């Protein structure tokens, strides 16, 4: 979806442009109209003055009473003011026309017409032609004025108007961008906070927000709290259940061992294997139920300390093997995943590697678009054909090693929960098994960003 800023911005831009464009157009038409009307009314007066000065002699010819023609503008050649009087027999042109003529029709009495045309010296002429009847003779008086000067002034006005309007438009657009930025700032902040939330750098959103989005923020915070509570409650309940179930199991197992000699071996074998089944099921189901899954991490894994602690723990557990566990971190990592889930994942992977390794285990973490976890050992490795079975071992309850197989089945659960995938190969570096887990990194800023 288009960002809010772009949508509001383009909407305002378009409407402002339309408003200013039509304003400019209306003004232009109005001004031109006004100017023309003004000129026409003046020409109309002049036309009437000319009519008054027209004399009809006894032969029916039209004559000008020169005393009536006051303005010298009709005398000076190409002055821009012209007239032309025509009757059926005679035609009189103003001296200013010199050797030119005006191409106008002969009108009947009472008819009026306006003509825009090019006159002498390419002047833009407005000609008002009017038909009169004087002493039974039809006279058509055309009177013209050069509009070039007026046109130029109108053009200047329009240029100034366009410049002013354009500048105002520009200022308004800049202003609205600034206002939008300011107005959307709380949203930018929330986007930023959500990103931090996703990376586990914060546990809630700031509540100091405009009241339009305050309900959203409150709701998100409420959901976050209730999610954390739910996960914690469920984890605690699971831990209690585990505790409650494992205690009697331990006691039964103890008793069975103690009285082994007194009991028929078929009984102890069956009971022990069933106990083991229960134990594995409890372990498997509880651990799966405890997964937080991807999403805002409750407590984020610290890629340095937590993993180092885990390695120390494993070195304690496999003390007699004197294992060397190499931890390679290609670059400083921040991993936005739940600490418990990740320790469970890495713990089981490394535990499996330590179990089979002779001296060396190598853990490598690389983060690009995905988090890539690679665990290698220098143990005997697993044949290609058997690799597919690795993940099913937990279900088949292979009892050759204590707790064996369960670990990788849990790894598979975690990987599934995080929509990742797991691959087994042979380690080129160490010669044993190489387990590679890829987990997609949750990206909450994605397309929902309101950044440009």
């Amino acid at each position, binding site marked *: 979806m288009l960002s809010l800023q772009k949508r509001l911005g383009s909407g305002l831009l378009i409407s402002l442009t339309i408003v200013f464009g039509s304003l400019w157009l209306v003004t232009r038409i109005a001004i031109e109209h006004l100017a023309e009307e003004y000129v026409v009314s003046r020409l109309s007066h002049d036309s009437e003055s000319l009519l008054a000065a027209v004399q009809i002699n006894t032969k029916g010819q039209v004559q000008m009473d020169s005393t009536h023609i006051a303005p010298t503008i009709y005398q000076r050649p190409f002055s821009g003011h012209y007239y032309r009087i025509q009757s059926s027999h005679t035609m009189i042109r103003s001296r200013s026309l010199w050797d030119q003529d005006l191409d106008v029709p002969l009108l009947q009495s009472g008819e009026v017409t306006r003509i825009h045309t090019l006159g002498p010296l390419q002047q833009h002429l407005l000609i008002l032609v009017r038909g009169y009847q004087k002493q039974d003779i039809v006279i058509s008086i055309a009177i013209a004025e050069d509009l070039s000067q007026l046109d130029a002034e109108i053009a200047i006005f329009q240029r100034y108007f366009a410049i002013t309007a354009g500048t105002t438009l520009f200022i308004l657009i800049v202003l609205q961008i600034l206002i939008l930025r300011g107005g959307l700032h709380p949203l930018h902040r929330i986007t930023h906070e959500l990103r931090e939330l996703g990376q586990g750098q914060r546990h809630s959103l700031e509540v100091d927000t405009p009241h339009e989005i305050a309900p959203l923020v409150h709701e998100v915070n409420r959901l976050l709290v209730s999610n954390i509570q739910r996960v914690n409650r469920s984890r605690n309940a699971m831990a209690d259940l585990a505790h409650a*179930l494992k*205690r009697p*199991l*331990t006691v039964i197992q103890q008793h069975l061992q*103690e009285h082994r000699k007194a009991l028929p071996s078929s009984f102890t074998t069956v009971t022990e294997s069933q106990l083991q089944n229960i134990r594995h099921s409890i372990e498997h189901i509880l651990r799966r139920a405890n997964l937080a899954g991807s999403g805002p991490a409750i407590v984020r894994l610290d890629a340095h300390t937590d993993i180092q*602690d*885990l390695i120390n*723990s494993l070195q304690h557990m496999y003390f007699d093997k004197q294992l060397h566990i190499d931890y390679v971190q290609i670059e400083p990592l921040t991993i936005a995943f739940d600490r418990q889930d990740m*320790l469970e994942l890495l*713990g089981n992977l490394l535990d499996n590697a330590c179990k089979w390794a002779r001296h060396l285990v190598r853990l490598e973490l690389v983060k690009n678009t995905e988090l890539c976890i690679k665990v290698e050992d220098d143990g005997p490795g697993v044949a290609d054909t058997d690799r597919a079975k690795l993940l099913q071992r937990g279900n088949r309850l292979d009892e050759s090693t204590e707790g064996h197989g369960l670990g990788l089945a849990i790894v598979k659960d975690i990987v599934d929960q995080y929509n990742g995938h797991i691959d087994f190969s042979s380690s080129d570096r160490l010669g044993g098994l190489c387990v590679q887990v890829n987990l997609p990194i949750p990206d909450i800023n994605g397309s929902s960003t309101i950044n440009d």
Partner: protein
Amino acid sequence: MRLLLVEDDHVLVHSLSQSLQRAGYAVDSTDNGIEAEYLGNENLYDVIILDLGLPDRAGLEVLKNWRQQGNTVPVLVLTARNAWHERVDGFKTGADDYLGKPFHVEELIVRLNALMHRAQQQPGGLLHAGDITLNEETQMVSTADGTQHVLTGTEFRLLRYFILHPNRVLSKSILTDHVYEQDADKDSNVIETYVKRLRQKIGKSHIETRRGQGYVFKSGIN
């Protein structure tokens, strides 16, 4: 080796104590965290098995307090809470080993023995001291000529303590403390009898008597 078992499930304590005693540990037990913390600081125990879900004071807190007070006694955490983050927290607090419930006693004992060796800078596997070799699993000792001697429970406990604490003076009361349980009938003269019997089996030269002080086990004698 004297062991403190901190566990609030009495049925488990009962059966586990018997298995541990058979494996050569003098076992005392307590079912609550406050008493456990006090006992653990007595400087009497060679190893402690600690449950985490204790009444009165949580197991991890007890462990933390021991470590803060400079108590370095080896601690094996035995708990139903065995998710990896709980393990990591346990080791971080100062646990030396971690075993999830339910467990096999054999594994617990193997881990305890390994922990004992580690605490005394001894390698894993069989215990060697000069020409004698002690097998903790079978509780038999073999001497230079290859003869195997079966040891009684107390003889085994005593010899193992000697081998794990070689070349230092061990008074009768120390030996009594580490061989017998809290409520056992302690008569230090009994130790003399057992030392005499051990000498018959492994040779006189291994255990020297320091008059008025106690005994010294010589590890380098062939």
